[in-house]
C-alpha cells in the first residue's frame, strides 16, 4: 500500500452569546418551547426589514483579533440561497466575498509540537431552525426558535494533517472563544460545531485529492472518529482503484459510520447575491482599536505568564489556562495561599478527578477558591499532613464545608509533639524486634513497615518527618 498524506480544513460554527437574534429582538436563549422565540423577521415573512445586532459585529471582530485576522474596514452581507424547511426565508443571510475578518492563524500544540494553523476567514451569518422527526405521523416538525440566532463561521486553511491536530485546533479555538466570552461553547447544545473537509493524496503528489465534507459534528469524539473513518474510507477506495466524489457526508457517531448525503450530481448552487435589505458595515480604526484594547489576556499569553511568574511547569500552565474558569479559580486561590504549585497540583489532581466523576465544571463545585487556599495553608503550616488533607478535601467536595472546620471537628490536626510521638515510636520498635533486625541487616523496607504501624497507631495524624527522624534515632541508638 502507498503512503498517504491527509489534508484537513475545518469550518467551525460558533453561536454568539448575544441576548437577541442577529436581525430582530427575539431572544436566543436555549431550550424554550418550540416557536416561542419568533417574529415575522426571523420567520421570513414578506415585507419585513432585518436590522443587524451591533453585538454581532463586535463579537466577530473580537474573534478575528484574537485569531490574528485582518479586520475588514468594508464588509457586506449576502444571501445564500437554498431550499430546505429549516430555513423559512429560503436563503441564509451570510457573507460571501467581503467577510468581516480575513487571513489569521492560531498556534496549536500536539504532543509538545507547536504548529500554526491558518484561518482563511471569519464571517457572520444566521443559524437555521431545528427539524424534529414526528415518529407518529411521519411528518417533519419545524421549530424556528433557532432561526437567525447569530453565528460566526471560522474557516481554516487546509493545514491540518490528522485527527489529533483537528482536535487540538478545535480545543484551542474553543478556549479562545470562551476567554472572549463571545460563545458559550456548549457542544452538546450545538453552540459550537464543525464541518470537516478532508482529502488524501499519495505522499509526494502535488495536487490535492478530491475532498469530501462531513457536516455538523458536535463533539470532540465525533470529530475524531469521523476523521479516522473518512481517512480509512478514502484510502480504501483509492487502493481499490476507485474514485473519490466531491460530496457532503454525515457521520453517525453512535454507529461510528459515515455516509453520503448529497452527491456531485445535485451539487449545491447557492447563487449568492448582495443582501439589499442590510447596509454595508464600515469599521473605523478607532472602533477596531477600542475592541483590541478591551480583549482579555488570551490563553497562550496567560500560559507563558504562569510559567514565568509562578514558576510552573509548562504542562501545568497549559492545563490550567485551557479553560478560563480553571485559570480564574487558580489565580484566585493562589492569591490567598501563595503556593502556585500546590494549587496547581490540587486542581489537576484529586479535584479534577472528582469534577470528572461528577460531570460538573469547576465553578459548579462546592469547593471555593478560599476553601482550597485554606486547605493548602493548613498543610503548609504543618497543621495537617498531606495524607489527611486528601481526606479533608473529599469532605469539602461533598459538603462544601470549610477545611479548617472539618479538621477541627474531626480532630485531624497533625501530631507534632515530639514527646508524644517518641513514646509511640518506642512502643512500635519494642514490639517489632524482627523488623529492627531486618533493617540492621540492610533491608530498608523494614522501616516502611514500622512507619506504617506508627501511622496506624496515630490514625495518620503523626507528622511524618518527625516520625522518620525519631524512628531512625531510636533504632540507630
Amino acid at each position: 500500500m502507498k503512503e498517504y498524506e491527509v489534508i484537513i480544513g475545518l469550518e467551525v460554527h460558533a453561536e454568539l452569546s448575544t441576548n437577541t437574534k442577529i436581525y430582530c429582538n427575539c431572544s436566543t436563549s436555549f431550550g424554550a418551547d418550540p416557536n416561542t422565540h419568533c417574529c415575522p423577521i426571523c420567520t421570513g415573512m414578506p415585507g419585513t426589514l432585518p436590522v443587524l445586532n451591533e453585538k454581532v459585529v463586535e463579537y466577530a471582530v473580537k474573534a478575528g483579533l484574537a485569531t490574528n485576522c485582518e479586520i475588514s474596514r468594508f464588509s457586506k452581507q449576502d444571501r445564500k440561497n437554498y431550499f430546505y424547511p429549516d430555513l423559512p426565508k429560503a436563503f441564509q443571510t451570510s457573507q460571501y466575498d467581503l467577510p468581516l475578518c480575513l487571513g489569521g492563524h492560531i498556534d496549536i500544540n500536539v504532543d509538545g509540537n507547536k504548529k500554526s494553523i491558518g484561518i482563511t476567514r471569519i464571517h457572520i451569518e444566521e443559524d437555521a431552525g431545528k427539524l424534529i422527526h414526528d415518529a407518529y405521523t411521519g411528518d417533519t416538525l419545524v421549530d424556528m426558535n433557532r432561526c437567525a440566532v447569530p453565528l460566526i463561521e471560522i474557516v481554516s486553511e487546509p493545514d491540518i494533517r490528522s485527527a489529533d491536530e483537528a482536535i487540538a485546533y478545535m480545543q484551542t479555538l474553543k478556549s479562545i472563544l470562551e476567554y472572549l466570552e463571545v460563545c458559550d461553547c456548549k457542544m452538546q447544545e450545538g453552540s459550537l460545531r464543525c464541518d470537516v473537509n478532508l482529502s488524501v493524496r499519495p505522499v509526494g503528489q502535488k495536487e490535492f485529492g478530491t475532498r469530501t465534507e462531513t457536516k455538523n459534528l458536535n463533539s470532540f469524539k465525533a470529530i475524531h472518529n469521523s476523521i479516522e473513518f473518512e481517512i480509512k474510507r478514502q484510502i480504501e477506495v483509492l487502493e481499490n482503484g476507485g474514485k473519490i466524489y466531491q460530496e457532503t457526508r454525515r457521520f453517525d457517531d453512535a454507529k461510528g459510520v459515515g455516509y453520503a448525503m448529497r452527491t456531485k450530481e445535485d451539487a449545491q448552487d447557492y447563487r449568492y447575491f448582495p443582501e439589499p435589505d442590510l447596509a454595508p458595515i464600515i469599521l473605523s480604526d478607532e472602533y477596531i482599536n477600542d475592541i483590541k484594547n478591551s480583549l482579555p489576556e488570551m490563553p497562550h499569553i496567560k500560559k507563558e505568564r504562569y510559567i514565568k511568574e509562578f514558576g510552573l511547569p509548562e504542562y501545568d500552565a497549559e492545563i490550567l489556562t485551557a479553560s478560563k474558569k480553571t485559570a480564574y479559580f487558580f489565580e484566585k486561590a493562589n492569591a490567598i495561599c501563595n503556593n502556585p504549585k500546590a494549587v496547581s497540583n490540587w486542581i489537576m489532581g484529586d479535584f479534577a478527578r472528582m469534577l470528572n466523576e461528577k460531570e460538573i465544571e469547576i465553578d459548579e463545585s462546592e469547593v471555593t477558591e478560599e476553601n482550597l487556599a485554606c486547605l493548602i495553608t493548613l498543610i503548609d503550616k504543618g497543621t495537617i499532613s498531606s495524607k489527611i488533607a486528601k481526606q479533608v478535601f473529599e469532605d469539602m467536595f461533598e459538603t462544601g464545608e470549610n477545611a479548617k472546620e472539618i479538621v477541627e471537628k474531626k480532630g485531624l490536626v497533625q501530631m507534632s509533639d515530639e514527646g508524644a510521638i517518641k513514646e509511640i515510636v518506642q512502643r512500635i520498635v519494642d514490639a517489632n524486634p524482627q523488623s529492627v533486625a531486618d533493617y540492621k541487616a540492610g533491608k530498608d523496607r523494614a522501616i516502611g513497615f514500622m512507619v506504617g504501624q506508627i501511622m496506624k497507631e496515630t490514625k495518620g495524624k503523626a507528622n511524618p518527618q518527625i516520625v522518620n527522624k525519631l524512628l531512625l534515632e531510636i533504632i540507630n541508638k
Partner: protein
Amino acid sequence: MSVSKEDVKHIAKLSKLNLTEEELEKYTTDLSNIVDFANELSNINVEGVKPTAHILDIRNVFRKDEVQPSYDREEILKNAPSKDAGCVSVPKVVE
C-alpha cells in the same frame, strides 16, 4: 443563445419547477433575450467607477442587543398550512 437548454433545466430544478419540452424551448429563448439585454451593460465603460455594494448611500445600520417580546406562537403559526405540537408540520424530509 446565451442561455442553454441545460442552464434552464438547472434553474428549473433549483426553482422546483417541472417544465415540459415546449416550455423548455420557450424559456431558453426568453431567458436568452433577457440575459442578452442585461449584457448590454457590459459595453459601458466603467473605468474609475467603484464597485457598488449597496444601491443606497447608507452604512452601519445597527440595533441594540435588547430582548423584546416575541410573537404569540398562535400568531406565528397562523399562516402554516399544517401544524402539530406547536410546530409547522411539513412532509417528511429525508436526511
